[in-house]
């Protein structure tokens, strides 16, 4: 890294931190204005609907239940568990999505036959499918995959869709003259796929993977709900939901950890894209 790029990265981190600080300040100012003016629109501001920033921060350091480690330790463990489900789901969904995209680009018939069902699959709410996935998948899994394996499949279900659509689009976007060029070289379909179509598709695939990165975390959390799993963030969310009226700060703390997990997944994909995809920097022409 050059000095300039280090400085740019530092500048960017500083901006992120400044924005975060501004957000926290806004939260407290909003609270103060609404409570002192007694406004009730759009909702009544109380310690339950909007706990203080410091109450939430303090909650991380205290045990949620007696004789337990502090909340942050518990949440990090749960986040790690959910991260495992999400990561496996992401990988599974990405591979399935990419493979389907490659298959579909080579056959118009397959495209016409399959695509409507792929689209339809995403119109069914994940909560409606999750219990069935658990029932179908769990019995087939070895003991070390029990429970969380089915959740990974649910996460994959949310991941694969943007990947299929964008892979297909990306593979089809190869330049017509580049295809002519490969034709004059008598390149086989396979060669055209790997040397031209796939590299062309990568920027498209990566924008799908960015979407998938956050979708797989959401998929994993939601997938935990019907599975009755207590080891992940989904279990924690259900649990703290029940105590919201007494200790809202614990659900808020959990949500912050869940959001952070999604951001980590997203940033990881962006970093991978920087390493893998070499394209002209986008400059206004």
């Amino acid at each position, binding site marked *: 890294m050059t000095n300039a790029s280090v400085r740019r990265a530092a500048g960017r981190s500083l901006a992120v931190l400044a924005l975060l600080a501004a957000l926290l300040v806004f939260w407290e100012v909003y609270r103060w204005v609404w409570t002192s003016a007694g406004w009730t629109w759009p909702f009544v501001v109380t310690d339950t609907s909007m706990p203080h920033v410091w109450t939430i921060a303090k909650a991380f350091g205290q045990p949620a239940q007696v004789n337990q480690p502090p909340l942050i330790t518990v949440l990090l463990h749960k986040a790690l568990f959910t991260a495992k489900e999400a990561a496996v789901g992401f990988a599974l969904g990405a591979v399935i999505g990419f493979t389907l995209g490659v298959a579909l680009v080579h056959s118009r018939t397959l495209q016409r036959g399959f695509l409507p069902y792929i689209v339809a699959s995403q119109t069914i709410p994940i909560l409606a499918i999750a219990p069935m996935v658990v029932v179908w998948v769990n019995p087939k899994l070895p003991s070390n995959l029990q429970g969380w394996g089915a959740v990974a499949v649910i996460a994959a279900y949310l991941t694969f869709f943007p990947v299929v659509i964008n892979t297909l689009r990306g593979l089809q976007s190869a*330049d017509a*003259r*580049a295809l*002519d*060029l490969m*034709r*004059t*070289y*008598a*390149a086989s379909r396979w*060669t055209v796929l790997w*040397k*031209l179509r796939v*590299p062309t598709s*990568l920027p498209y695939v990566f924008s799908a993977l960015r979407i998938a990165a956050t979708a797989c975390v959401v998929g994993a959390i939601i997938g935990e709900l019907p599975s009755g799993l207590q080891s992940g963030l989904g279990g924690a969310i259900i649990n703290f939901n029940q105590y919201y009226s007494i200790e809202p700060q614990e659900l808020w703390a959990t949500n912050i950890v869940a959001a952070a997990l999604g951001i980590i997944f997203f940033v990881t994909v962006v970093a991978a894209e920087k390493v893998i*995809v*070499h*394209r*002209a*920097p986008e400059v206004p022409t």
Partner: protein
Amino acid sequence: MSTHEPVVRVEGVSKIFPRGNVVALQDIDLTLAPQEFVSLIGPSGCGKSTLLRVIGDLIDPTAGTVTINGKPARQARSDHDYGIVFQDAVLFEWRTVSKNIALPLELLGWDRARRKARVEEMLELVELQQFGDHHPWQLSGGMQQRVAIARAFAFEPALLLMDEPFGALDEMTRERLNLELLAIWQHLASTVVFVTHSISEAVFLSTRVVVMSPRPGRIAGLVEIDLPSPRTAETREEPRFFELVTQVRELLRLRGEHLLPEEEQLLREAAE
């Protein structure tokens, strides 16, 4: 020249595009001897690019045959007999300059060491030695086109097809690349079919100029270019050069009598 087996033999080729029933080519006969540099020139819509694509087996003719070194065009294509350069460089932006030049060599199954040696040789020929590790977007348009030329010539194909390769470049770059192209052509003793809009470019580069006329696309005449070889920047100033340019222009004009106004406009542009 005539003692050799021709590299290209086009016999009775016609091409009708079903959409709109456009007769793009009608009864084209053309033969290219080894190491010939033949330019196809004519106004837009005269079918010169179509002819190039038929020769390269990128589209099928409606009638007639194309033979390359005694083989059908389809066979020639699978034997890797063609190199091609388009108006745009069509470089793969995810590959470095060197990797772009190496692309056809990879497809031919050359091993790494052989590829590397040839790429270096080609980089030297197009004077881009220091740019092997650059990505295409870091180069100017002229440099990109030189990479495309290096890629096309790298495996010494039997026939080079060039479709207005310098059409998008400024005049000065174009003239310099004309000289570079001739040097490479002589060095590698290749056979070239060159499509262009520019009369002076066609005369300067070619051993023979094929003048085409539109609707239907036909060969209006052939002009043997008997300028001494190798050609230099001074060639463009010789009286013979101007005579030949005039000869080609006359042929284009002769066929332009019953053209639509916008076609005449194109013709004038082509003549400039």
